């Protein structure tokens, strides 16, 4: 499940060694319609709003398809379909409900290459990651939750769980299909019906998922998919018949949603931003730790809410870590996301690229020292950002405080475990954290003291359907995955 291989790359030649990899493009053809409708009540419908927008391949800027921009009436139609379907879905024998989810998991596995390629085309992530991380986890999420459907009574000792009703689910663009699975699978297993809103730059795999839902004969209305931007999401969250709002995205939008549901009886779970610390102690296995840093910040171009974007290195080993990190960074393959050797793909959108560039400028402006990938030339078209890291970063610097959501790392040092913990926790966020040490007792003490919902010890950015994921503090509340994730989709 590691996003990037953990083998030692010590003997890898630097990228300027004078020879290069041959292209290794993934060629699986993917049929993409010229335009897509909204998936409502079991079929694809033209949007009542009559509005559309284009989705592009961020690696080429080519238009891939025309996507429906759902308006309030479309959202209402989707919610009504979900409402109508909810009673029968909840009354369905739980073991039969489970079988639909098992079927979905199986069809995703069967169509996984096609979905991986589409994910990479629409979002820019390396095919290696969509193929080896996103798709396996997407299928696993449905398979795992399928089995919960008829066992919910065992999940909450002393309580009787019931479905909540219609769930409005708003997901981000960094792991489009996997986030859809994280939202849909537990909701459906618990007897709810769903209206899912994908992010506007990455609607295609969700719409492909709609085909799969039709293939497996999921009853109409149980899942509805409305594409669109922020206004569509707001209409969904504010719809009075939505009983539960689940959102993954920025802390800023999460707070807006929290205010919008205040005073209603809607349930809310939020999986928001982060500025996660990754701590390397002098007694760590340094080569492994450096590989962990690569996974923590450059996985998926750094478009990861739990990215380890603040690296704290014990002072006595900082030179060694920085040297190895610089060397390792140069060995990354940056470019065509469909190339099977690519480590770093395209930035998801022009807008996100601007955000990242603004932060990098701020880092340089505030006096931090940038170390940048200088390997292969970047393609002429598309949105690209070289992986980089900053040294000489002060805790007060913007790049050490704010979520960048790009391949940009801030490296800082510490002298004592107490200092590492206090600096790591000195953030309003609390999504994830990493700790690297070969001392067992230290692992558990540091893990205990870090204020984060996920603590990766001697590893980073590993995910699993059985493993609860979610934040402390302003990184949100509620968990996704595992027994804990079910609680987000039941009432008592």
């Amino acid at each position: 499940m590691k996003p990037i291989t953990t083998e030692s790359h010590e003997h890898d030649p630097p990228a300027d060694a004078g020879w290069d990899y041959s292209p290794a493009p993934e060629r699986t053809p993917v049929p993409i319609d010229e335009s897509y409708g909204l998936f409502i009540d079991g079929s694809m419908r033209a949007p009542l709003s009559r509005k559309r927008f284009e989705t592009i391949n961020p690696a080429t800027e080519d238009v891939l398809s025309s996507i429906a921009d759902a308006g309030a009436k479309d959202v209402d139609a989707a919610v009504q379909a979900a409402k109508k379907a909810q009673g029968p879905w909840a009354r369905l024998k739980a073991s039969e409900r489970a079988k639909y989810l098992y079927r979905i998991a199986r069809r995703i596995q069967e169509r996984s290459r096609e979905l991986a390629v589409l994910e990479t085309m629409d979002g820019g992530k390396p095919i290696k990651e969509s193929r080896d991380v996103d798709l396996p986890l997407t299928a696993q999420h449905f398979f795992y939750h399928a089995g919960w459907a008829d066992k919910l009574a065992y999940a909450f000792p002393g309580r009787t769980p019931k479905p909540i009703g219609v769930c409005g689910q708003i997901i981000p663009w960094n792991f489009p299909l996997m986030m859809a699975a994280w939202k849909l699978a537990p909701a459906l297993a618990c007897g709810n019906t769903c209206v899912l809103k994908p992010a506007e730059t990455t609607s295609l795999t969700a719409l492909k998922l709609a085909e799969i839902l039709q293939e497996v004969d999921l009853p109409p209305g149980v899942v509805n998919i409305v594409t669109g931007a922020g206004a569509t999401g707001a209409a969904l969250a504010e719809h009075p018949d939505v009983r539960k709002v689940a959102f993954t995205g920025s802390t800023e939008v999460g707070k807006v949603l929290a205010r919008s549901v205040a005073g209603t009886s809607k349930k809310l779970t939020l999986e928001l931003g982060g500025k996660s610390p990754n701590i390397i102690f002098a007694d760590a296995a340094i080569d492994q730790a450096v590989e962990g840093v690569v996974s923590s910040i450059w996985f998926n171009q750094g478009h990861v809410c739990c990215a380890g974007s603040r690296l704290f290195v014990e002072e006595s080993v900082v030179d060694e870590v920085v040297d190895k990190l610089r060397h390792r960074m140069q060995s990354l393959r940056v470019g065509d996301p469909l190339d099977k050797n690519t480590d770093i793909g395209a930035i998801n959108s022009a807008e996100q690229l601007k955000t990242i560039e603004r932060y990098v400028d701020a880092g340089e402006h505030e006096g931090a020292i940038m170390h940048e990938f200088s390997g292969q030339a970047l393609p002429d078209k598309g949105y690209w950002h070289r992986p980089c890291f900053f040294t000489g970063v002060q805790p007060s610097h913007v790049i050490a405080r704010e979520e960048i959501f790009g391949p940009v790392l801030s490296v800082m040092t510490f002298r004592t475990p107490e200092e590492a913990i206090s600096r790591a926790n000195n953030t309003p966020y609390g999504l994830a954290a990493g700790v690297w040490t070969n001392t067992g007792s230290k692992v558990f003490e540091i893990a205990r003291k870090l204020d984060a919902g996920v603590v990766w010890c001697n590893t980073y950015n590993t995910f699993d359907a059985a493993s609860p994921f979610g934040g402390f503090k302003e990184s949100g509340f509620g968990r996704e995955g595992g027994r804990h994730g079910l609680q987000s989709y039941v009432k008592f």
Partner: protein
Amino acid sequence: MNARLDVIKTCKLFIGGAFPRTESGRSRPILDGDDRVIAHACVASRKDLRNAVEAARKAAPAWLNASAYLRGQILYRMAEMLEGRRDEFANAIATTTDATPAKARKEVEQSVDRLVRFAGWSDKFQQILGCQNPVNGPYYNFTVPQPTGITGVLAPSTPSLLALVTLIAGPLCAGCTVVAVASEDTPLPAVLLSEICATSDVPAGTVNILTGQRAELIEPMASHREIAAINGANLTPSQRTGIQSAAADNLKRVHLAKHTEDQWEDDELVASPWNIEPFVESKTIWHPSAT
């Protein structure tokens, strides 16, 4: 001339293990059933609330790092101390509320038993709320509950003692420190509960109790950036909306219940692990398993 003048108790706030007067210099009378003044309660201000939060923050590391066994013993010690002062508490409730002496006594006894129940939960809920996760790979992966942080408690008017004890004990059990706003109408039992805390090995600042006006203290509590969670009961719809809306600023975990008087007696409803769970965060820890 053998009449003796009563020595009337000065009721103060309970902040950081001390009993200060409100900085606002305000108080209001506590009346008995015949509308005679038997004491004066402080009317805490938002500044007092901030001081209480500061005390709760200072106390937080020690309380969250205390062993679950120790936290259980301290909660049990509170029960012991309350048991020893049953008559005084029952008298305070009977004198200042509509409760009959028998009902007041029952409420005190239930409060003692409630503390004993939570004392028992303190080193057990982790095994119910936590678990080991069977991930698909060579990792040891487990989820443990950790305290959310400083919890603001908003106690309802009645039952003035039992509800306050219940709302405080859940977060305490979780390892959170507490800033509580007592029953507005009948603050005397809360004032006495402060004395129980002060004499039960509860570390200073772990529990802070304010008397005053709910409407005045709700907003500063809900918007305080250092308060991580709110445990309240029987609030009005507009109060609920106000709390949830202000709490969004730092994404407080807001747990607002609505219970009838009878329901406060129901251990399954108000004193189960699910009354501790809102005040913990689930932390999932991964470690590779290899040789």
